[in-house]
């Protein structure tokens, strides 16, 4: 049994990481008071930018192109999220509508451009290689679980996640950002520009989601085709499931990651072969619903989320 867990673990972590980084991005945006339904689209944009960059550079410079691809994805996600920031912060637009538009534009526009550039809607890249972290992977118990067969991007994302925790809870910017999501008028009365903080938050969410999309591409998918398989929406669900808190998100995304991986690899596991496939596949979603039913009474989204900032309102 333990051997099994050890075998599944790397795949589960690989699946979790893009969810985690995207949900972390969503955390910035929503804690600042801007709902970001567009995470899925921002992931697609990231995946596309990375695919274009990598496909162009990989023949020339080999593996290093992957990192440039991630960088391009971060930039593209940040840039594209400006559309959402402009609509929802500057124009006081309905944030759900704007986010939905982002999703639709991303899905359509990237495939449109891909077809024009490469002649097909798909772009293939060769993904990152897995590696064992020397020393640490020989550690008893956790070595095999966490430090063997990992992608370099996993560590990058965990670092960004830790940084996000620090920024949101230990810096002035983070305090102001969270206050913008609760009571923006109070922030404004302290002489802080609410619009600028919200812009920054949305752009950070775009950068993170773009990175998440690129990680899907450069780890387990290896192909851009205009979707990220609903992972952006799943990240959104994890954000709400995790009650808009960093550790909650960490738990929620790991739960999704492990549950989905167990479901996909069930055929190869004798102990799970007796459980019908449909039960395994629906398990993470059903359990999420149940957990939400139990805990939602006490959940509270950021008070001002979804509300355009009106300085005169009290």
């Amino acid at each position, binding site marked *: 049994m333990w051997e099994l867990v050890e075998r599944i673990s790397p795949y589960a972590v690989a699946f979790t990481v893009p969810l985690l980084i995207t949900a972390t991005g969503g955390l910035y945006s929503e804690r600042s008071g801007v709902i970001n*339904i567009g995470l899925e689209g921002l992931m697609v944009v990231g995946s596309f930018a990375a695919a274009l960059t990598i496909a162009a550079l990989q023949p020339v410079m080999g593996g290093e192109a992957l990192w440039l691809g991630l960088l391009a994805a971060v930039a593209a996600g940040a840039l594209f999220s400006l559309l959402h920031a402009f609509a929802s912060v500057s124009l006081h*637009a309905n944030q759900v509508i*704007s986010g939905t*538009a982002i*999703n639709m534009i991303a899905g359509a526009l990237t495939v*449109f451009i891909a077809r024009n550039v490469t002649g097909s809607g798909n772009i293939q890249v060769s993904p990152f290689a897995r590696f064992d972290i020397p020393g640490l992977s020989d550690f008893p118990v956790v070595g095999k679980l966490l430090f063997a067969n990992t992608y370099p991007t996993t560590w990058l994302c965990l670092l960004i996640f830790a940084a996000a925790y620090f920024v949101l809870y230990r810096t002035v910017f983070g305090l102001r950002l969270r206050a913008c999501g609760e009571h923006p008028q109070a922030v404004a009365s302290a002489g802080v520009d609410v619009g600028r903080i919200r812009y920054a938050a949305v752009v950070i969410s775009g950068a993170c989601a773009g990175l998440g999309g690129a990680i899907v591409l450069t780890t387990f998918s290896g192909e851009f085709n205009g979707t990220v398989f609903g992972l952006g929406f*799943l990240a959104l669900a994890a954000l*709400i499931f995790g009650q808009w808190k960093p550790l909650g998100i960490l738990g929620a995304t790991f739960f999704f990651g492990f549950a989905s991986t167990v479901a996909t690899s069930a055929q190869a596991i004798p102990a799970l072969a007796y459980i019908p496939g*449909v039960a395994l596949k629906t398990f993470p979603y059903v359990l999420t619903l149940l957990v939400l039913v139990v805990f939602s009474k006490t959940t509270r989204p950021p008070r001002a989320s979804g509300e355009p900032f009106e300085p005169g309102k009290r």
Partner: protein
Amino acid sequence: MPIFDRRSRKEALLLVLTILAGLAAGAVLMLLTGNDPAAGYGYLFRGGLMSLERAGNTLATAAPLIFTGLSVAVAFKTGLFNIGAAGQMLIGGFCAVAVGLTADFPRPLLLAAMTAAAAVSGGVWAAAAGWFKARFNVHEVVSTIMLNWIAYWLVYYLVPAYFKGPFATESRNIPAAASLRTDWLSGLFDGSYINLGIFLAIAAVLLCAFLLQRTTLGFALKAVGFNRLAAEYAGIDAGRSIVAAMALAGALAGLGGMTLYCGYAASLQIGVLPSQGIDGIAVALLASNSPWGVLAAALFFGVLYSGKGFMNAMTSIPPEIADTIIATIIYFAATSALMEKGVDKVVKRLKGGV
């Protein structure tokens, strides 16, 4: 007449400008990719409208969009964001297909049974999300996303297990008696795949317009959407309204699933969430949640979607331009405040000049 008051006239003008801006953005994209926009749009609209057959196909494409658009709009009216129309379509469509493949009724009875199965199953599926929201405060965006994936996997396993077709990714074809396509209608439109779904959809528009504007239930749904606390203070059971709104939304989406799988297509595809679920959001947004607006918006999208294949065949413009145009229109709809300012400025200048 409310249609002619000043406010709505301005809204109508903004809507037209929004659509034009979307089309202009599409034209810019065609130019940037080295294509001729005039030719592109010529083929796009001709592909959707130039013959009776193509017009029929446009109507067939629009029917599921009308249903999902209504579904999202009804939920929006009550302040709920139904992102789960796709899952409700799958469940409704699956139940309709299941009845169509197993029941041995005479055609009118069979179609009625399929309609009931689609509406009830889709309604129950979505009502669950409504109940979770009303009773346990579960955010409907998360619960409907979860329900989408549960529907996806349920159908993924149930179809091959009970209704296996010649291809691994599809159900068996439904028999002619269970199809929404009829000879007289297809004949009328030169063999297009138009089907009874469009009549069902128009009936649904009428029903929703009546329900929302002329009934107590409709008033309660809208009141909860405007201000839940005020509605409760006025004695409206907000929880019940939320469940009712989701049930209605799900029933509409379920019927959309039936028109998709038993009218537009003849079998149920597994392994994919129907894209009409998300497009329904766009339809509802463009229509500002009015049932008649949904009809118009869905027909417009129907033209773009059924014309894109023809355009792609005649030019080198990828078919995704249609989705891009629709998406851009939605973005312009979201940012219409900007356009409104522009319109106000122009109006002021015109008036100031006198």
